[in-house]
Protein backbone atom coordinates (compact mmCIF):
# COMPACT_ATOMS: atom_id res chain seq x y z
CA UNK A 1 0.00 0.00 0.00
CA UNK A 2 1.42 3.27 -1.05
CA UNK A 3 -0.51 6.22 0.16
CA UNK A 4 -0.73 5.53 3.84
CA UNK A 5 -2.40 8.75 4.70
CA UNK A 6 -4.79 8.06 7.56
CA UNK A 7 -7.85 9.29 5.61
CA UNK A 8 -6.96 7.03 2.67
CA UNK A 9 -6.63 4.00 4.91
CA UNK A 10 -9.86 4.86 6.68
CA UNK A 11 -11.83 5.49 3.47
CA UNK A 12 -10.87 2.17 1.92
CA UNK A 13 -11.58 0.12 5.06
CA UNK A 14 -15.00 -1.14 4.06
CA UNK A 15 -14.05 -2.69 0.79
CA UNK A 16 -10.82 -3.95 2.31
CA UNK A 17 -12.47 -5.53 5.37
CA UNK A 18 -15.37 -7.06 3.53
CA UNK A 19 -15.68 -7.87 -0.15
CA UNK A 20 -18.03 -5.03 -1.00
CA UNK A 21 -18.54 -4.46 -4.69
CA UNK A 22 -21.28 -2.82 -6.72
CA UNK A 23 -24.06 -4.37 -8.72
CA UNK A 24 -25.45 -2.38 -11.62
CA UNK A 25 -29.21 -2.00 -11.57
CA UNK A 26 -29.20 -1.44 -15.31
CA UNK A 27 -27.17 -4.33 -16.74
CA UNK A 28 -26.94 -6.53 -13.67
CA UNK A 29 -23.17 -6.90 -13.74
CA UNK A 30 -20.98 -6.67 -10.66
CA UNK A 31 -17.67 -4.84 -10.29
CA UNK A 32 -15.03 -4.54 -7.58
CA UNK A 33 -13.85 -2.21 -6.08
CA UNK A 34 -16.88 0.12 -6.08
CA UNK A 35 -16.78 2.84 -8.74
CA UNK A 36 -19.08 5.80 -9.38
CA UNK A 37 -20.52 4.24 -12.53
CA UNK A 38 -20.80 0.79 -14.03
CA UNK A 39 -17.67 -0.11 -16.05
CA UNK A 40 -19.84 -2.10 -18.47
CA UNK A 41 -22.83 0.09 -19.28
CA UNK A 42 -21.92 3.44 -17.61
CA UNK A 43 -25.08 3.48 -15.49
CA UNK A 44 -24.82 5.38 -12.23
CA UNK A 45 -27.60 3.34 -10.70
CA UNK A 46 -25.61 0.97 -8.52
CA UNK A 47 -26.12 -0.89 -5.28
CA UNK A 48 -23.49 -2.22 -2.94
CA UNK A 49 -23.34 -5.98 -2.70
CA UNK A 50 -21.16 -8.33 -0.72
CA UNK A 51 -19.18 -10.62 -2.98
CA UNK A 52 -18.85 -14.38 -2.51
CA UNK A 53 -15.96 -15.22 -0.21
CA UNK A 54 -14.98 -18.34 -2.11
CA UNK A 55 -13.65 -18.67 -5.61
CA UNK A 56 -11.26 -20.53 -7.81
CA UNK A 57 -7.86 -19.75 -9.29
CA UNK A 58 -7.91 -18.65 -12.93
CA UNK A 59 -4.19 -17.92 -12.99
CA UNK A 60 -1.44 -17.04 -10.55
CA UNK A 61 2.10 -15.76 -10.25
CA UNK A 62 4.80 -16.22 -7.64
CA UNK A 63 6.24 -12.79 -7.13
CA UNK A 64 9.83 -12.47 -5.98
CA UNK A 65 10.45 -8.84 -6.95
CA UNK A 66 8.03 -7.37 -4.45
CA UNK A 67 7.99 -3.71 -3.52
CA UNK A 68 9.53 -2.38 -0.34
CA UNK A 69 6.31 -2.81 1.67
CA UNK A 70 6.08 -6.55 1.18
CA UNK A 71 9.73 -7.49 1.20
CA UNK A 72 9.59 -9.45 4.44
CA UNK A 73 7.13 -11.99 3.06
CA UNK A 74 8.65 -12.54 -0.41
CA UNK A 75 7.79 -14.52 -2.45
CA UNK A 76 4.16 -13.51 -2.57
CA UNK A 77 1.63 -15.67 -4.42
CA UNK A 78 -0.84 -13.56 -6.37
CA UNK A 79 -3.97 -15.09 -7.80
CA UNK A 80 -6.52 -14.00 -10.37
CA UNK A 81 -9.57 -15.40 -8.61
CA UNK A 82 -12.96 -16.04 -10.14
CA UNK A 83 -15.70 -15.23 -7.62
CA UNK A 84 -18.46 -16.04 -10.09
CA UNK A 85 -20.03 -12.59 -10.22
CA UNK A 86 -16.67 -10.92 -10.86
CA UNK A 87 -12.95 -11.52 -10.48
CA UNK A 88 -10.35 -10.20 -8.10
CA UNK A 89 -6.57 -10.19 -7.85
CA UNK A 90 -5.44 -10.97 -4.33
CA UNK A 91 -2.62 -12.43 -2.34
CA UNK A 92 -2.88 -16.15 -1.63
CA UNK A 93 -1.78 -17.00 1.90
CA UNK A 94 -1.28 -20.12 4.05
CA UNK A 95 -0.02 -22.01 1.03
CA UNK A 96 3.22 -22.99 -0.65
CA UNK A 97 3.59 -22.12 -4.33
CA UNK A 98 3.46 -25.80 -5.27
CA UNK A 99 0.02 -26.17 -3.60
CA UNK A 100 -1.59 -23.71 -6.02
CA UNK A 101 -3.02 -24.94 -9.29
CA UNK A 102 -5.36 -23.41 -11.80
CA UNK A 103 -8.80 -24.39 -10.57
CA UNK A 104 -7.82 -24.55 -6.87
CA UNK A 105 -10.62 -23.51 -4.48
CA UNK A 106 -9.88 -20.51 -2.25
CA UNK A 107 -11.64 -18.66 0.56
CA UNK A 108 -11.24 -15.11 1.86
CA UNK A 109 -9.53 -14.50 5.22
CA UNK A 110 -8.93 -11.29 7.14
CA UNK A 111 -5.24 -10.50 7.48
CA UNK A 112 -2.71 -7.78 8.13
CA UNK A 113 -1.71 -6.33 4.76
CA UNK A 114 1.07 -3.98 5.68
CA UNK A 115 2.31 -1.19 7.88
CA UNK A 116 3.63 2.26 7.25
CA UNK A 117 7.04 2.74 8.84
CA UNK A 118 6.61 6.48 9.19
CA UNK A 119 3.09 6.88 10.51
CA UNK A 120 2.74 3.46 12.17
CA UNK A 121 -0.62 2.96 10.45
CA UNK A 122 -1.31 -0.78 10.11
CA UNK A 123 -3.37 -1.90 7.16
CA UNK A 124 -5.71 -4.87 7.33
CA UNK A 125 -7.60 -6.46 4.52
CA UNK A 126 -8.52 -9.68 2.81
CA UNK A 127 -6.30 -12.40 1.43
CA UNK A 128 -7.32 -15.80 0.13
CA UNK A 129 -6.28 -19.26 1.35
CA UNK A 130 -6.85 -22.76 -0.01
CA UNK A 131 -10.09 -24.49 1.03
CA UNK A 132 -9.05 -27.79 2.63
Amino acid sequence: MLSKSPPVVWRSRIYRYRLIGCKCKNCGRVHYPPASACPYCSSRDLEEVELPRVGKVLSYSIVYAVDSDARERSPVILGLIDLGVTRIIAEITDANPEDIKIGSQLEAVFRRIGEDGETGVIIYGLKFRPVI
Partner: protein
Amino acid sequence: MAYITGASMINIDRHYDKSIRRLASDAVFKLDSSSVENVDYVIVASSISYLQEPQLDLASYIASALGLRNARAFNVEAGEVSGATAVLMAKSLVDSRLASKVLVVGVDKLSNYPSAVTYKHISLLNDSESESLYSIGLGGIAGILMRLYMETYKVDRLTLAYWPALMHSNAKLNPYAMLRFTITPEKVLDAMPIADPITLLDTFPIGDGAAALVVESKPRDALAEIVAVESAVGYPSITLSPDPLRIDSLELAYSRLTEKLDLKRIDVIELHDSYTISAILQLESLRLAERGKAAEAVANGYFTVNGDGPVVNPSGGLKARGHPIGATSVYQVAEVASQIAGIFPGLKVPDAKSGLVVSVNGFGSNSYVVYLRGVE
Protein backbone atom coordinates in the same frame (compact mmCIF):
# COMPACT_ATOMS: atom_id res chain seq x y z
CA MET B 1 -0.88 19.06 -40.56
CA ALA B 2 1.94 18.48 -38.09
CA TYR B 3 5.46 17.39 -38.91
CA ILE B 4 8.41 16.18 -36.87
CA THR B 5 11.33 18.39 -37.85
CA GLY B 6 13.77 17.34 -35.18
CA ALA B 7 14.36 14.38 -32.88
CA SER B 8 16.99 13.60 -30.29
CA MET B 9 17.62 11.04 -27.57
CA ILE B 10 20.15 10.38 -24.85
CA ASN B 11 21.32 6.93 -23.83
CA ILE B 12 19.09 5.33 -21.23
CA ASP B 13 21.00 4.52 -18.06
CA ARG B 14 21.10 5.04 -14.32
CA HIS B 15 22.20 8.66 -14.55
CA TYR B 16 22.86 9.12 -10.84
CA ASP B 17 24.80 12.30 -11.51
CA LYS B 18 22.05 14.05 -13.46
CA SER B 19 18.93 15.83 -12.28
CA ILE B 20 15.76 15.65 -14.31
CA ARG B 21 16.47 19.11 -15.72
CA ARG B 22 19.95 18.08 -16.77
CA LEU B 23 18.61 14.98 -18.52
CA ALA B 24 16.14 17.21 -20.35
CA SER B 25 18.79 19.70 -21.43
CA ASP B 26 21.12 16.90 -22.55
CA ALA B 27 18.40 15.74 -24.95
CA VAL B 28 17.24 19.18 -26.10
CA PHE B 29 20.75 20.52 -26.63
CA LYS B 30 21.43 17.69 -29.09
CA LEU B 31 18.89 19.28 -31.43
CA ASP B 32 20.11 21.91 -33.89
CA SER B 33 20.06 25.14 -31.93
CA SER B 34 17.98 26.78 -34.68
CA SER B 35 15.25 24.22 -34.16
CA VAL B 36 14.59 25.36 -30.60
CA GLU B 37 14.43 29.01 -31.55
CA ASN B 38 10.97 30.53 -31.38
CA VAL B 39 9.40 27.57 -29.69
CA ASP B 40 5.80 28.46 -28.81
CA TYR B 41 5.18 25.64 -26.35
CA VAL B 42 7.28 23.20 -24.37
CA ILE B 43 5.27 20.10 -23.54
CA VAL B 44 6.98 17.88 -21.01
CA ALA B 45 6.00 14.23 -20.75
CA SER B 46 7.03 12.95 -17.35
CA SER B 47 5.31 10.62 -14.93
CA ILE B 48 7.24 8.76 -12.25
CA SER B 49 9.41 11.81 -11.62
CA TYR B 50 6.51 13.11 -9.50
CA LEU B 51 7.52 10.48 -6.97
CA GLN B 52 11.24 10.17 -7.67
CA GLU B 53 12.18 13.85 -7.87
CA PRO B 54 9.04 15.83 -7.02
CA GLN B 55 8.57 19.17 -8.76
CA LEU B 56 5.13 20.54 -9.49
CA ASP B 57 4.76 22.64 -12.66
CA LEU B 58 7.91 20.84 -13.81
CA ALA B 59 7.58 22.04 -17.39
CA SER B 60 7.95 25.73 -16.60
CA TYR B 61 11.10 25.03 -14.58
CA ILE B 62 12.49 22.92 -17.42
CA ALA B 63 11.69 25.63 -19.97
CA SER B 64 13.49 28.20 -17.80
CA ALA B 65 16.49 25.99 -17.14
CA LEU B 66 16.86 25.41 -20.89
CA GLY B 67 16.75 29.13 -21.67
CA LEU B 68 13.42 28.87 -23.53
CA ARG B 69 12.22 32.18 -22.17
CA ASN B 70 9.57 32.87 -24.75
CA ALA B 71 7.93 29.50 -24.58
CA ARG B 72 4.74 28.51 -22.82
CA ALA B 73 4.94 25.27 -20.87
CA PHE B 74 3.00 22.47 -19.23
CA ASN B 75 3.41 18.84 -18.27
CA VAL B 76 1.30 15.97 -19.52
CA GLU B 77 1.06 12.96 -17.25
CA ALA B 78 -0.60 9.80 -18.43
CA GLY B 79 1.62 7.11 -16.93
CA GLU B 80 3.31 5.00 -19.56
CA VAL B 81 1.40 6.74 -22.37
CA SER B 82 2.52 10.25 -21.33
CA GLY B 83 4.83 10.70 -24.32
CA ALA B 84 2.19 9.76 -26.89
CA THR B 85 -0.23 12.14 -25.21
CA ALA B 86 2.32 14.94 -25.43
CA VAL B 87 2.70 14.22 -29.15
CA LEU B 88 -1.09 14.41 -29.54
CA MET B 89 -1.10 17.76 -27.74
CA ALA B 90 1.69 19.05 -29.96
CA LYS B 91 -0.26 18.03 -33.05
CA SER B 92 -3.41 19.62 -31.66
CA LEU B 93 -1.68 22.93 -30.90
CA VAL B 94 -0.18 23.03 -34.39
CA ASP B 95 -3.37 21.92 -36.15
CA SER B 96 -5.42 24.52 -34.29
CA ARG B 97 -2.84 27.19 -35.18
CA LEU B 98 -2.40 28.04 -31.51
CA ALA B 99 1.26 27.23 -32.10
CA SER B 100 3.57 26.92 -35.06
CA LYS B 101 6.41 25.20 -33.25
CA VAL B 102 6.18 22.89 -30.25
CA LEU B 103 9.02 21.20 -28.40
CA VAL B 104 8.07 17.88 -26.82
CA VAL B 105 10.43 16.71 -24.09
CA GLY B 106 9.99 13.25 -22.64
CA VAL B 107 12.04 12.88 -19.49
CA ASP B 108 11.78 10.57 -16.52
CA LYS B 109 13.84 9.42 -13.56
CA LEU B 110 13.81 5.96 -12.01
CA SER B 111 17.20 5.75 -10.33
CA ASN B 112 16.74 8.18 -7.45
CA TYR B 113 15.74 5.36 -5.10
CA PRO B 114 16.68 1.71 -4.55
CA SER B 115 14.85 -0.71 -6.86
CA ALA B 116 12.34 -1.85 -4.22
CA VAL B 117 11.15 1.74 -3.78
CA THR B 118 11.15 2.35 -7.52
CA TYR B 119 8.99 -0.76 -8.02
CA LYS B 120 6.58 0.74 -5.51
CA HIS B 121 6.47 3.96 -7.53
CA ILE B 122 5.98 1.98 -10.74
CA SER B 123 3.10 0.06 -9.16
CA LEU B 124 1.18 3.35 -9.08
CA LEU B 125 0.61 2.90 -12.80
CA ASN B 126 -1.88 0.27 -11.62
CA ASP B 127 -5.21 1.17 -10.08
CA SER B 128 -4.46 2.65 -6.66
CA GLU B 129 -7.90 1.62 -5.43
CA SER B 130 -7.32 -2.05 -6.13
CA GLU B 131 -3.94 -3.45 -7.21
CA SER B 132 -1.51 -0.97 -5.79
CA LEU B 133 -3.49 -0.74 -2.56
CA TYR B 134 -2.26 -4.28 -1.94
CA SER B 135 1.32 -3.74 -3.09
CA ILE B 136 0.51 -5.49 -6.35
CA GLY B 137 2.98 -4.32 -8.96
CA LEU B 138 3.08 -4.65 -12.72
CA GLY B 139 5.21 -7.80 -12.53
CA GLY B 140 2.64 -9.85 -10.65
CA ILE B 141 -0.08 -8.99 -13.12
CA ALA B 142 2.22 -9.76 -16.03
CA GLY B 143 3.00 -13.12 -14.42
CA ILE B 144 -0.71 -13.90 -14.06
CA LEU B 145 -1.33 -12.95 -17.70
CA MET B 146 1.63 -14.95 -18.99
CA ARG B 147 0.53 -18.12 -17.18
CA LEU B 148 -3.04 -17.60 -18.39
CA TYR B 149 -1.77 -17.18 -21.96
CA MET B 150 0.41 -20.31 -21.77
CA GLU B 151 -2.49 -22.37 -20.39
CA THR B 152 -5.14 -20.96 -22.72
CA TYR B 153 -3.18 -21.33 -25.94
CA LYS B 154 -0.83 -24.15 -24.90
CA VAL B 155 2.26 -22.12 -25.63
CA ASP B 156 5.48 -23.17 -23.90
CA ARG B 157 7.77 -20.90 -21.96
CA LEU B 158 10.71 -21.28 -24.36
CA THR B 159 8.69 -20.07 -27.35
CA LEU B 160 7.87 -16.96 -25.34
CA ALA B 161 11.57 -16.35 -24.74
CA TYR B 162 12.34 -15.50 -28.36
CA TRP B 163 10.91 -12.02 -27.85
CA PRO B 164 13.50 -10.81 -25.31
CA ALA B 165 16.25 -12.51 -27.31
CA LEU B 166 15.18 -10.58 -30.42
CA MET B 167 15.00 -7.33 -28.46
CA HIS B 168 18.54 -7.73 -27.13
CA SER B 169 19.76 -8.54 -30.61
CA ASN B 170 18.15 -5.36 -31.99
CA ALA B 171 19.33 -3.16 -29.12
CA LYS B 172 22.95 -4.15 -29.64
CA LEU B 173 23.08 -1.72 -32.58
CA ASN B 174 21.20 1.14 -30.88
CA PRO B 175 23.61 3.63 -29.28
CA TYR B 176 20.85 4.91 -26.97
CA ALA B 177 19.82 1.48 -25.67
CA MET B 178 20.53 0.55 -22.07
CA LEU B 179 21.19 -3.18 -22.61
CA ARG B 180 23.47 -3.74 -25.58
CA PHE B 181 24.31 -7.43 -25.33
CA THR B 182 22.72 -10.47 -26.93
CA ILE B 183 21.02 -13.30 -25.03
CA THR B 184 19.64 -16.68 -26.06
CA PRO B 185 16.04 -17.71 -25.43
CA GLU B 186 17.37 -20.41 -23.08
CA LYS B 187 19.10 -17.77 -20.98
CA VAL B 188 15.76 -16.02 -20.39
CA LEU B 189 14.42 -19.18 -18.73
CA ASP B 190 17.53 -19.53 -16.58
CA ALA B 191 17.42 -15.95 -15.29
CA MET B 192 16.20 -15.00 -11.83
CA PRO B 193 12.43 -15.40 -11.54
CA ILE B 194 10.75 -12.10 -10.68
CA ALA B 195 7.10 -13.08 -11.00
CA ASP B 196 7.03 -16.71 -12.06
CA PRO B 197 6.67 -17.60 -14.96
CA ILE B 198 8.37 -14.25 -15.69
CA THR B 199 12.11 -13.86 -15.22
CA LEU B 200 14.30 -10.79 -14.99
CA LEU B 201 15.02 -11.06 -18.71
CA ASP B 202 11.33 -10.74 -19.63
CA THR B 203 11.16 -7.15 -18.50
CA PHE B 204 12.67 -3.71 -18.84
CA PRO B 205 15.73 -2.49 -16.92
CA ILE B 206 15.47 0.46 -14.52
CA GLY B 207 16.95 3.50 -16.25
CA ASP B 208 16.55 7.25 -16.71
CA GLY B 209 16.09 8.85 -20.08
CA ALA B 210 15.17 11.90 -22.10
CA ALA B 211 14.17 12.40 -25.71
CA ALA B 212 12.99 15.46 -27.59
CA LEU B 213 10.89 16.17 -30.67
CA VAL B 214 10.27 19.37 -32.59
CA VAL B 215 6.78 19.48 -34.06
CA GLU B 216 5.95 22.12 -36.65
CA SER B 217 3.30 23.07 -39.11
CA LYS B 218 5.83 23.21 -41.96
CA PRO B 219 6.92 20.08 -43.81
CA ARG B 220 10.29 21.50 -44.87
CA ASP B 221 13.17 19.24 -43.78
CA ALA B 222 10.75 17.12 -41.80
CA LEU B 223 11.65 13.61 -40.72
CA ALA B 224 8.03 12.49 -40.86
CA GLU B 225 4.44 13.63 -40.72
CA ILE B 226 2.32 12.90 -37.65
CA VAL B 227 -0.69 11.65 -39.58
CA ALA B 228 -2.85 10.72 -36.60
CA VAL B 229 -2.79 9.98 -32.90
CA GLU B 230 -5.60 7.87 -31.51
CA SER B 231 -6.33 6.45 -28.10
CA ALA B 232 -8.87 4.83 -25.82
CA VAL B 233 -9.29 4.24 -22.12
CA GLY B 234 -9.78 0.67 -20.97
CA TYR B 235 -10.78 -1.24 -17.89
CA PRO B 236 -8.85 -0.07 -14.85
CA SER B 237 -7.90 -3.65 -14.00
CA ILE B 238 -7.65 -6.97 -15.84
CA THR B 239 -10.14 -8.31 -13.28
CA LEU B 240 -12.91 -6.35 -15.01
CA SER B 241 -11.94 -7.23 -18.56
CA PRO B 242 -14.20 -9.86 -20.15
CA ASP B 243 -11.06 -11.43 -21.64
CA PRO B 244 -7.84 -10.38 -19.90
CA LEU B 245 -5.82 -11.66 -22.88
CA ARG B 246 -7.33 -8.97 -25.10
CA ILE B 247 -6.25 -5.38 -24.75
CA ASP B 248 -9.64 -3.80 -25.42
CA SER B 249 -8.33 -0.24 -25.23
CA LEU B 250 -5.63 -0.93 -27.82
CA GLU B 251 -8.11 -2.65 -30.13
CA LEU B 252 -10.42 0.35 -29.84
CA ALA B 253 -7.65 2.91 -30.34
CA TYR B 254 -6.35 1.03 -33.37
CA SER B 255 -9.82 0.68 -34.88
CA ARG B 256 -10.32 4.44 -34.43
CA LEU B 257 -7.12 4.90 -36.42
CA THR B 258 -7.97 2.44 -39.20
CA GLU B 259 -11.46 3.88 -39.59
CA LYS B 260 -9.94 7.24 -40.41
CA LEU B 261 -7.04 6.06 -42.51
CA ASP B 262 -6.26 3.47 -45.09
CA LEU B 263 -3.31 1.73 -43.44
CA LYS B 264 -2.31 -0.46 -46.35
CA ARG B 265 1.20 -0.62 -45.20
CA ILE B 266 3.12 -0.27 -41.95
CA ASP B 267 6.82 -0.75 -42.36
CA VAL B 268 8.01 -0.36 -38.81
CA ILE B 269 6.38 -0.57 -35.39
CA GLU B 270 7.67 0.36 -31.96
CA LEU B 271 5.41 -1.25 -29.38
CA HIS B 272 5.23 -1.28 -25.60
CA ASP B 273 6.92 -4.50 -24.46
CA SER B 274 7.14 -3.73 -20.76
CA TYR B 275 6.96 -7.52 -20.36
CA THR B 276 7.27 -10.28 -22.94
CA ILE B 277 3.57 -11.02 -22.54
CA SER B 278 2.74 -7.36 -23.21
CA ALA B 279 4.43 -7.54 -26.61
CA ILE B 280 2.65 -10.78 -27.48
CA LEU B 281 -0.80 -9.44 -26.54
CA GLN B 282 -0.20 -6.20 -28.43
CA LEU B 283 0.87 -8.02 -31.61
CA GLU B 284 -2.37 -10.00 -31.42
CA SER B 285 -4.48 -6.92 -30.63
CA LEU B 286 -3.09 -5.30 -33.78
CA ARG B 287 -3.98 -8.52 -35.69
CA LEU B 288 -0.41 -9.03 -36.74
CA ALA B 289 -0.82 -12.60 -35.53
CA GLU B 290 -3.78 -14.80 -34.68
CA ARG B 291 -4.64 -15.22 -31.02
CA GLY B 292 -2.19 -17.59 -29.42
CA LYS B 293 0.17 -17.44 -32.37
CA ALA B 294 2.24 -14.29 -31.89
CA ALA B 295 5.02 -15.95 -29.87
CA GLU B 296 5.51 -18.53 -32.58
CA ALA B 297 5.60 -15.80 -35.26
CA VAL B 298 8.26 -13.97 -33.25
CA ALA B 299 10.28 -17.17 -32.87
CA ASN B 300 10.04 -17.72 -36.64
CA GLY B 301 11.49 -14.30 -37.41
CA TYR B 302 8.28 -12.84 -38.86
CA PHE B 303 8.91 -9.40 -37.30
CA THR B 304 12.60 -9.09 -38.21
CA VAL B 305 14.11 -7.20 -41.15
CA ASN B 306 14.16 -10.48 -43.12
CA GLY B 307 10.66 -11.53 -42.11
CA ASP B 308 7.37 -11.03 -43.89
CA GLY B 309 5.78 -8.82 -41.26
CA PRO B 310 6.51 -5.25 -40.34
CA VAL B 311 9.76 -4.81 -38.45
CA VAL B 312 8.83 -4.58 -34.79
CA ASN B 313 11.00 -2.81 -32.23
CA PRO B 314 14.23 -2.34 -34.15
CA SER B 315 15.26 -0.11 -31.23
CA GLY B 316 15.35 -3.08 -28.87
CA GLY B 317 12.06 -2.08 -27.28
CA LEU B 318 11.33 -1.38 -23.66
CA LYS B 319 13.00 -4.70 -22.92
CA ALA B 320 16.47 -3.68 -24.05
CA ARG B 321 16.41 -0.05 -25.16
CA GLY B 322 14.86 0.71 -21.78
CA HIS B 323 11.68 2.23 -20.38
CA PRO B 324 11.92 5.61 -18.67
CA ILE B 325 8.19 5.53 -18.02
CA GLY B 326 6.81 8.95 -19.05
CA ALA B 327 9.55 9.47 -21.65
CA THR B 328 9.27 6.11 -23.41
CA SER B 329 6.77 6.94 -26.11
CA VAL B 330 8.74 10.07 -27.00
CA TYR B 331 11.67 7.71 -27.65
CA GLN B 332 9.38 5.49 -29.71
CA VAL B 333 8.14 8.38 -31.86
CA ALA B 334 11.71 9.68 -32.28
CA GLU B 335 12.82 6.21 -33.36
CA VAL B 336 10.04 5.66 -35.87
CA ALA B 337 10.46 9.17 -37.31
CA SER B 338 14.21 8.54 -37.64
CA GLN B 339 13.58 5.20 -39.37
CA ILE B 340 11.29 6.90 -41.88
CA ALA B 341 13.89 9.61 -42.45
CA GLY B 342 16.56 6.91 -42.85
CA ILE B 343 18.69 8.32 -40.06
CA PHE B 344 18.09 5.91 -37.19
CA PRO B 345 21.57 5.11 -35.89
CA GLY B 346 20.77 1.48 -34.93
CA LEU B 347 19.18 -1.38 -36.85
CA LYS B 348 17.75 0.23 -39.98
CA VAL B 349 14.48 -0.75 -41.58
CA PRO B 350 15.23 -0.48 -45.30
CA ASP B 351 12.98 1.87 -47.22
CA ALA B 352 10.56 2.52 -44.34
CA LYS B 353 7.82 4.89 -45.44
CA SER B 354 5.37 4.57 -42.61
CA GLY B 355 5.39 3.50 -39.00
CA LEU B 356 3.31 2.99 -35.91
CA VAL B 357 3.98 3.64 -32.24
CA VAL B 358 1.97 1.68 -29.70
CA SER B 359 1.88 2.87 -26.11
CA VAL B 360 -0.05 1.21 -23.30
CA ASN B 361 -0.44 2.09 -19.65
CA GLY B 362 -0.20 -0.96 -17.44
CA PHE B 363 -2.09 -3.75 -19.19
CA GLY B 364 -4.59 -1.58 -21.00
CA SER B 365 -6.07 1.09 -18.72
CA ASN B 366 -5.11 3.52 -21.49
CA SER B 367 -3.72 2.89 -24.98
CA TYR B 368 -2.35 5.21 -27.67
CA VAL B 369 -1.32 4.68 -31.27
CA VAL B 370 0.68 7.21 -33.29
CA TYR B 371 0.86 6.81 -37.05
CA LEU B 372 3.75 8.47 -38.90
CA ARG B 373 4.41 8.71 -42.60
CA GLY B 374 7.27 9.97 -44.74
CA VAL B 375 7.10 13.39 -46.34
CA GLU B 376 7.06 13.31 -50.15
